[in-house]
């Protein structure tokens, strides 16, 4: 399997404060990678840097073998980086359909396929995104990312704050995307939900890659050390 995404020794700052101290990570074609860590360890910063929404001071972001470290966010997205951001972040005053078509790029995922994938979005087609429930907004955020026809889907806390039944629905949708061969980089705090899907795990600790390996190798000792509250 070839690498879709390679993060090499990422160094990122917020003003004078360094947030990432050399994060390394790789996602291979068709692989689902879980990016984990306690709050404030740099997961969202890593996702935002990958999507070129934050500038790099050191290291490199390679996507499909190409160095995209200097590309603006919209160019990175056009190459196939589909972001489902933390907190959904749909366009609140656009309808569901407008949210979806704004992101549309040529490829197998079109409006009809996204609506078939999430029938709820079909039912809410003309409703403003701001008026959707949390679960529906999450479906919209995933649908919007799919409309960009990504090679890699980055899911930042895709089920945060949702009711258990909706979380289950979202996770089964993500599992279905994985079974179709879409590469995934997922951030989530609920290990019982993210680990069954993950082929590979990366744990961040204070802005550094503290551990990485196969999901089955993640022992209780490691989770206690890096992920325990």
């Amino acid at each position, binding site marked *: 399997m070839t690498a879709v995404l390679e993060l090499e020794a990422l160094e990122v700052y917020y003003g004078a404060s360094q947030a990432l101290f050399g994060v390394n990570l790789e996602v291979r074609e068709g692989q689902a990678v879980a990016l984990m860590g306690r709050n404030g360890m740099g997961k969202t910063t890593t996702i935002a840097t990958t999507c070129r*929404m934050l500038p790099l001071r050191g290291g490199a972001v390679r996507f499909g073998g190409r160095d995209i470290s200097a590309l*603006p*966010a919209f160019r990175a*997205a056009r190459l196939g980086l589909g972001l489902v951001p933390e907190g959904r972040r749909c*366009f609140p*005053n*656009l*309808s569901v359909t*407008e949210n979806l078509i*704004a992101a549309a790029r040529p490829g197998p995922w079109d409006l009809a396929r996204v609506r078939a994938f999430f029938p709820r979005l079909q039912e809410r087609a003309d409703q403003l995104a701001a008026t959707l429930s949390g679960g529906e907004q999450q479906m919209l955020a995933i649908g919007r990312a799919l409309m960009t026809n990504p090679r890699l889907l980055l899911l930042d806390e895709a089920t945060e704050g949702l009711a258990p039944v909706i979380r289950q629905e979202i996770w089964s949708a993500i599992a279905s995307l994985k079974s179709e061969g879409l590469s995934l980089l997922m951030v989530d705090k609920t290990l019982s939900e993210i680990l069954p899907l993950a082929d590979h795990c990366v744990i961040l600790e204070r802005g550094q890659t503290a551990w990485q390996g196969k999901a089955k190798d993640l022992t209780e000792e490691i989770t206690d050390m890096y992920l325990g509250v």
Partner: protein
Amino acid sequence: MDNLRKEWLLNALLAAALFMVPFWAWIASEPFIITLATRIAILAIAGVGLNIALGLGGMVSFGHALYLGIGGYVAGIAAHHAFHGTPILGLPGTNQMLPIWAIAMLFSGAIAAIVGALSLRTSGIFFIMITLAFAQMGFFFTLSWPAYGGEDGLPIFMRNQFPGLNTARPWELFLVAYGVLILTLGVFATLRAARFGAALMAIRQNPDRAAAIGISPFGIKLVAFILSGMITGLAGAMMADLTRFVSPAMMAWTMSGELIVIIILGGVGRLFGPVAGAAILVGFEVFFGGLTEHWKLWLGLVLLAVVLFARGGLIGLIAGRAQNG
């Protein structure tokens, strides 16, 4: 009735009223009313142009009079050379509206591309000031352009012609303006419903979020700004033909302000907002202007009331909140 249906009904009523009032005036031989309706239609076309930039894209251009003036001067200069039989840069002048409109849109679009490429690198007050500065440059350039009248402006002795119609007759000129207005409204509605419109509105709501899904904020806004300038330029060419006169006043900052007022009064981003806004503005000018020379004071109070209590303008007041305001 939901807001969307209310808005469509209101739009249909406005379109019908704008046609039926001058139609009645034509039957009753009231050319003044027809000319007023033509002015409303042309100002509404300019408003539709600005509505693309301001309403959909959130770009508060305080210099759109520049494109109105460019369109006006293209019409005036072409007619001037056609009338005197003198060439412009080796080419003959023309008194045909269709090629004049094409040239007006081309020139307006080219200037909008330059203005947009520079001003869209800024936002907020800086964007407003840069667009104003460019319009003022146009204003002072035409003011000191003696070949085409300078401060005194340039008269159009014979109104330019439209194939198959006699534009010297107010009703037939109105038909031209009304037809173009419906066409530009169609362009606006199509843009808004397309991916382009959704992307533009997404950028207005959050440019960083839009960039994360592959939308180039600068590129999309620039295209919108150019289209906006082109439509406003078209309105300028038509306005020059209506008044048979073009002067630097068409590019004055007060004109840019009037275009913004039209959008705010009618409803920012609403399809028929510019039609409603232009009707209110011209209505105030004619009816209250006849009663008092301080009619703009009353218009100012109405504008204040709209901004404070009816931010969706007239359309929003009647049809409710915008689908994507």
